[in-house]
């Protein structure tokens, strides 16, 4: 019997491995002809669900109307921005033509050679409507790999009845007036103190050989400051959702997070919700600016797409002013298109202001070189060590140097 079944196995495997790789001719419809194409688009499920207004479907249909030379059959798939890049990289051939991803996964795409570059008129369309920094977040080796549609960073939400607008400019002032909660053990947030005091990551974020510089006096000073901060009675660690819970029961008056929590915080604080860019902190008498990691979310195009022209056009459209406006109206996604940011209604939105203020002034572009992957765990452990009191003033120097060494090592 084994033999008979192995016949089956051979047959099945044989037939299926007959699939080979092929290059298809990039076709463009000639004048007057209508080309029938099928485009697969991936987006988070909130962008496609009826309850949230079906942003994706509306935009894709608008695109189809604007391009009567194509007869497009859209196929939608669900992939949230954080994992889309990994899924495309795993098997680019079977992935979407157009997808939405977060820029910190850009190297995953470029390493797998799965993302298409934007050039010529399409690149111009992107660079002319967005600020340089946002566009830089999608450049690798100088080439553009996506169309940005929003910035991605974190900033501060506070209770207006406790803090005034002046107070929130400096962390230490805030600590005198109310309770502040910070995600101390989260390595996306903690480096903001170090970077504010001059520590650098890969020089400007792109020079991988330069490595990470979190060493020396500048870093040890920050470690000492953080140890003292931990002891401050009005400073609490935000972990496992304790920040939100604290806002709810009134034990916390300010917390650091991003636009994803804005809805819940609005529910809790109502009109007392205040949003601001990051404050400064006082280190040895000098004011240093906390600097957040910032990135963007973008529309990317699959390098193995059979309909490159249509895909690139669709990507540019999904990141255009109309699409961003619809996104803002339906889901409160903060736009990054420069014209749109001048519009009245949007310019008055304090969330938009705070996010873009942070992006422009109080943040650095999160490096997305490959070695950045080594930088998360050591910082997280420093945060945990300070919280657990295993890092003290006595061993702050060694621990900081150890953290720096770890950030610069592959672990091999």
């Amino acid at each position, binding site marked *: 019997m*084994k033999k008979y079944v192995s*016949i089956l196995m051979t047959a099945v*495997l044989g037939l299926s491995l007959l699939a080979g790789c092929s290059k298809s001719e990039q076709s463009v419809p000639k004048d007057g002809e209508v080309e029938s194409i099928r485009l697969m688009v991936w987006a988070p499920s909130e962008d496609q669900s009826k309850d949230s207004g079906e942003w994706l479907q509306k935009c894709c249909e608008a695109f189809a109307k604007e391009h009567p030379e194509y007869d497009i059959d859209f196929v939608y798939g669900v992939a949230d921005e954080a994992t889309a890049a990994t899924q495309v990289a795993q098997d680019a051939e079977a992935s979407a033509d157009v997808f939405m991803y977060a820029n910190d996964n850009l190297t995953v795409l470029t390493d797998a050679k799965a993302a298409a570059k934007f050039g010529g008129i399409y690149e111009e369309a992107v660079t002319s409507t967005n600020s340089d920094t946002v566009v830089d977040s999608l450049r690798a080796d100088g080439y553009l790999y996506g169309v940005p549609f929003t910035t991605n960073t974190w900033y501060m939400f506070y209770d207006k009845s406790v803090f005034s607008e002046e107070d929130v400019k400096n962390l230490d002032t805030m600590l005198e007036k109310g309770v502040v909660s910070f995600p101390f053990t989260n390595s996306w947030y903690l480096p903001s103190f170090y970077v504010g005091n001059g520590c650098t990551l890969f020089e400007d974020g792109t020079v991988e050989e330069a490595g990470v510089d979190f060493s020396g006096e500048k870093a040890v000073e920050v470690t000492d400051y953080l140890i003292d901060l931990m002891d401050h009675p009005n400073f609490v*660690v935000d972990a496992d959702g304790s920040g939100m819970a604290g806002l709810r029961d009134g034990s916390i008056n300010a917390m650091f997070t991003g636009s994803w929590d804005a809805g819940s915080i609005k529910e809790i604080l109502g009109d007392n919700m205040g949003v601001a860019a990051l404050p400064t902190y006082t280190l040895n008498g000098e004011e240093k600016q906390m600097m957040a990691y910032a990135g963007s979310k973008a529309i990317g195009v699959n390098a193995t797409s059979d309909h490159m022209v249509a895909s690139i056009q669709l990507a540019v459209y999904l990141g255009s002013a109309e699409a961003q406006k619809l996104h803002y109206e339906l889901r409160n996604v903060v736009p990054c298109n420069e014209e749109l940011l001048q519009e009245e209604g949007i310019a008055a939105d304090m969330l938009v202001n705070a996010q873009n203020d942070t992006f422009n002034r109080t943040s650095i572009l999160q490096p997305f070189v490959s070695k950045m992957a*080594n930088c998360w765990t050591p910082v997280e452990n420093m945060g*945990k060590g300070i919280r657990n009191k295993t890092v003290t003033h006595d061993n702050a120097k060694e621990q900081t140097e150890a953290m720096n060494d770890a950030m610069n090592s592959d*672990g091999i």
Partner: protein
Amino acid sequence: MGIFKKKVNDFPTPYTVKAAIAEGGVETRLSMLVMGLGNIMHKQVAKGLLFLAVEIMYIVFMVTNGFHCLAMLPSLGSVEQQEVWNEALQIYEYTQGDNSVLILLYGVATVMLTLLMVWIWRGTVKSGYKAECLDKAGKHVNTFIEDVKTLGHENVHRLLMTPSLTFIFGLTVLPLIFMICMAFTNYSKIGNHLVLFDWVGLDNFKALFDSSSILGSTFWSVLVWTLIWAFFATFTNYIFGMILAIVINRDGTKAKGFWRFCFVLSCAVPSFVSLLIMRTMLQPNGAVNVLLRNLGWIAADSSLPFFTDPLWAKVTVIVINIWVGVPYTLLQLTGVLQNIPTELYEAARVDGANAIQIFSKITLPYMLFVTTPYLIATFTGNVNNFNIIYLLSGGDPVVDLSSTAGSTDLLVTWLYKLTIDKQYYNIGAVIGILTFVILAVGALITYRNSKSYKDEEGF
């Protein structure tokens, strides 16, 4: 040295390939080239044609795909993705290059198919020779229908084992061999070898055994903890589960079903839910510490270092594992326990034995006999128990900042961090292989020397 006994064939048969070549007739020798010929010429036409069909399919497959896959295997592809700027369309056009992952996978699959084919070929030659011998001796040669009928009786093991074996080979063994091959390549994020990689031989192994490297020292400490963990996890669960099973099963206990239900309820809720909840509860500001503070058992601003002190973390993980594992042990051991013939117990009671004697002379030996393979399997399962460590402690606390593993990381969770988080696939494969080698030797020795293996009917 029982392992190195001389190989004894328990199933001798005169129909071997050697005999077929030496003593078979012309048609049998021709069967080596044209499978099934011997069967056709000796009244087994249907069977012979079937063998022939298999051979043709294999040849077709090899010609269309197989040779190409095998040819690419030594180089693992070298063509990179080509990019051309199309000025007219204002786009970059891409031609896909080679993908080493796929080349390796298809190459390994083709090799395995070929090996399978060799095995089938041997079988058909033997079958042809058998048909020739039986025919020449004038004995009855099975028709096709009779052959199929034997599947219900003498050859029922072929019928019952084949479906299972097919899937094991396709979905477990093939990926496994693929993974082993990965250890000899440089498939890793380092040096950007994620699409195209090459064979590097034993370089990765050298890096691991170099004790001055971070990887080397991490490997040994993680291995030691993994063994300690597996030992404690297996035995605490086993003993606790057995005691519980016996206690619930004894005559005086009322509402047996209810008690069992209570314990099994905890495995009904998916483990990742309960583990995540427990992890949150044991954080420095989690529910347990808050409760202890409220009760005044610990000082107001301190907290029990469940996951922040290495030793505490290790103990906590073992204790929580008891909570997770005992219901499963309970379920199984109850079944085994209930199968002990009650006559044994009655006889023992008549002879005046007390509870402890009954336990140690009847229950325990019986349980150990039946469950030794299970114990060994659980031990190896616990070595690879990913869920509980990953979800509960995440490997925390990390004591050595430069290493990639935490103090409660098992080999398997460390492997996960290396492959999925950091994409060092080749190093991960090497660690997997080394773990396997160390454990396999130990497990096989214990297993083959255990009573249940050597003397299966002798209960």
